[in-house]
């Protein structure tokens, strides 16, 4: 079943769409979750959460803003990051709630504008990097992949990958001029 058909079924609240989504996109979603959550059970639970979120939020998907894969990627990554934060907090407070939404600190509108501006400046700086370095950047800082995984997948030794990431960090620091620090 192709992507368009899966979206159509999901929008029509047809469970066949959910099944097809799981069959076709689970490998991608597992791949995104794996570097963020180390425990296998957490990863499976996160995958189920993410699939449920897709089912619930499919109406929010806007084809004009990006591909379905990009939307699914963002949704899965954010689900994994949220779960990782909860796990960290639970480890600190010995309390983990499955259902409660994480109580995020209130963000002042002014701070939100500043964060958006910082993000724009960062993306401009990333855009000025060569393609091979941009690929490493996204893997490291968006997908939170460990250096060992990045190295294996791009055909580098771990040491070489570390060296490249160091150079990327150095370039970004220079281009951002202390904007993030």
């Amino acid at each position, binding site marked *: 079943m192709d992507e368009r058909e899966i979206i159509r079924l999901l929008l029509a609240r047809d469970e066949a769409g959910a099944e097809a989504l799981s*069959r*076709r996109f*689970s*490998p*991608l979603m*597992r*791949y*995104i979750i794996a570097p963020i959550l180390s425990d296998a059970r957490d990863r499976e639970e996160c995958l189920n959460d993410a699939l449920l979120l897709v089912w619930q939020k499919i109406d929010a998907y806007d084809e004009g*803003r*990006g*591909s379905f*894969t*990009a*939307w699914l*990627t*963002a949704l899965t*990554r*954010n689900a994994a*990051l949220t779960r990782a934060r909860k796990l960290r907090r639970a480890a600190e407070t010995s309390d983990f709630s499955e259902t409660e939404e994480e109580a995020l600190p209130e963000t002042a509108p002014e701070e939100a504008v500043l*964060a958006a501006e*910082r*993000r724009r400046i*960062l*993306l401009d700086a990333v855009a000025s990097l060569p393609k091979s370095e*941009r*690929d490493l950047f*996204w*893997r*490291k*800082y*968006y*997908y*939170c*992949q460990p250096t*060992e995984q990045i*190295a*294996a*997948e*791009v*055909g*580098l*030794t*771990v040491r*070489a990958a570390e060296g490249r990431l*160091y150079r990327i*960090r150095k370039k*970004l*620091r220079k281009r951002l001029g202390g904007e*993030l*620090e």
Partner: protein
Amino acid sequence: MTDRNRADERFDEALISSLADESLPPEEAVRAANPSRRAVRCVLIGLSLCGITLKIGWLPYLLPAAGHLLSLLGLRALSRENGWFGTAYGCAWGRAAYFWSWLILLNLPGGAETAETGLWKALSVVYGVLLLIEVFALGRGLSAVRRASGLDASVPAALGLFVWHAVVFVLAVIAPNFTGGTLLVVLFLGSYVMLLRALFSAAAEFEEAEYAIRTAPVRVSDRSLAAAMLIVLAAGLTVTGILCARLPMNWQPLTARSPEAEDAVRELEDLGIPQTVLDDLTEDDLLACRGAERAVVKVSEEESPDGGVIRFTNIGLRMPEDGGEGISCRVILRFEWIEAPRVRGTDCIHLWERGGRDEDCIRGEVGGRLLVDRDGTTYSADYAFLGRQLLSGGVTSFFFSSFTEEAAEIVGEFSPDRQGRRMRGYVSYALTVPEGRNVSEWYNYTHQISRFVYPRTTALSHQRPSSAWVGDRTFRSFYSALQFTP
């Protein structure tokens, strides 16, 4: 933890948190994070480069070389995923080793001919079998990945890829020189299209499973491995290029002639043969010319693209009647580089005995030698080869249509001395011409004009029809003729 490490960690956290909002990632970020797409593309592009070869320039060598490298790098990354991919990786190493050796073999004199015989022929079959196993294992490996990730395990495109390679392999084994002309060209172009379709379809089958494939960590980066393999190849080509670029020649100082030969020189001088020519003839050739009744001398000059000027002095001698049928003559075809060429690789002289020209003339044994002046001394050497040789044609084609020619003709092959001046030589033979016929001896002198010739081709092997396109930038042939009424 040092201050620097702490600062790096803080910066890393700042970068991650700057990207932690819910807006969509750029498409390039989505494409970038993929465990196996890069490896799979390498494998499929590698297979296509090995499968589709055009006999144009160095493309039959460059494209498969790149293809073997890409296949190897791609399969290296996939090899840990399952045993099938591991098997394919092993086969890729075997194929690359054969192909690298074959590329180096082609840089040896006669390498192209060696590659078609004996052990190399057997190895080429092994290569084909390895390729089949590799493609089969690739399909099985993909099927296993799809099954493990809950997808449909059938991989029809991968099967199609295997079938295509199997058909080409069987054709190559049972009919390596099959001549089918235009029909075969059309068939193969069609099969190339089928191959590309199978590759694209296989890519789609891989794409569905690509997130489920684990790539293997590497101790040597792809770039380093590729560089190492290219260095090995370059070293092999350089060593064979240096050691085997020239034919072995045995230059010896010229020795004094006997009084009998000196008499012959005087006799021939009286007939108008230039002293420079007579100085070069061997004693046997001088004595064979004794008694000549008349001489015809034709001189011409040609410029070579590598800066040399060559002078041809063609001499025909009418010899006394020997009681046999026809008119007895003697022919001396001499060349001399009056301005030295820059390239001194291999040269050859090749007499045309076919093509309907005086085929009923009878030519005797061929004699001759080479001479050069160095440090005030004249040195002489025999040709590396002088005599009749079967110039047999192999396959000559743009794609696959071919023809075959065979003929034994008079050829002389040698490597000019590296430093000497006035590099020169000649061939001489007896000629019996039917009554009422003119002598018409045509030949070409082929000179190497490029230092880099690949595959290794000597001036003589350049005379043969060949499947390899060498082009006019490596050798230049000068045509010369001796025509006279005996």
